[in-house]
């Protein structure tokens, strides 16, 4: 097993009358993970979407880090899963998210702009019966 340390700091001197200084750390126990940079082809929810997590790729739990590398905020990326209606997240250019993954669902991404660049990572306990690269 390996440990991934994930930390988040939220800071502001002026969004409240007292400073906001929130810091959290999680040490995630996992045995697999990757950091990938890729282009997104699809611009609507269809077969051109980029799969970033497949059904039961991990067991028990998994975590997704994803960043939209576009420089224009309006060039969004959209994350959805394959079974529910709606979006998991809509991320503007330069923005990122860190979220847990429902391990039994497939997560896909489409974008405002063809060939939008993203960076993403999934950490968890690998399920050899459903390898990300297929069999």
């Amino acid at each position, binding site marked *: 097993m*390996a*440990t*991934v*340390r*994930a*930390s*988040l*700091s*939220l*800071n*502001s*001197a*002026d*969004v*409240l009358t007292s400073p*906001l200084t*929130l810091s*959290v750390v*999680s040490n995630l126990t*996992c045995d*697999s*993970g990757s*950091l990938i940079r890729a282009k997104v082809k699809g611009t609507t929810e269809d077969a051109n979407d980029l799969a970033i997590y497949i059904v039961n790729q991990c067991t028990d*739990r*998994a*975590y997704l*880090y994803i*960043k939209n590398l576009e420089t224009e*905020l*309006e060039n969004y990326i959209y994350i*959805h*899963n394959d079974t*529910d*209606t*709606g*979006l*998991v*997240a*809509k*991320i*503007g250019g*330069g*923005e*990122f*998210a*860190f*979220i*847990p*993954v*429902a*391990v039994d*669902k497939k997560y896909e991404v489409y974008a405002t702009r063809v060939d939008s660049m993203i960076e993403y*990572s999934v*950490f968890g306990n690998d399920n050899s019966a459903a390898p990300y690269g297929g069999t």
Partner: protein
Amino acid sequence: MATTTATLTLSSSDLTGDALSLSTTATLTKAGSATGLDQTSGVGRKTTTATTQYTLFDGSDYTADKAHKVYIKNTSTVLTEYVTVEMNSEAIGRLYAGDWMFFPWGANAATNDIKLAPSVATTLTVEYLIVSEV
């Protein structure tokens, strides 16, 4: 105008042969603008004692199609306890004890609620923060 920054760091010395060290920072700005988000709930906590799903953030309370940001943490220390997070009835995932999440939220429709369902009917506390715009 307020300035709020979010910094995410991911690191691991033993996941791969080459140490993982990633750090990214975003200044939280309004949709389509360089102006900082200027509304916030502050850091709050909610404690439940039932497994009933509840609405943490109601989509109708926030302006649609904006660049709100949401932080949620499960403060439980019991490793098996989790909260299931949904947005607009779409499962995002489970936050187990000590886990947290941070993501942008468009509040695209009044139905675009962020809802939590605790896994236990005993005391479970989540911590939350939203930084938003009108």
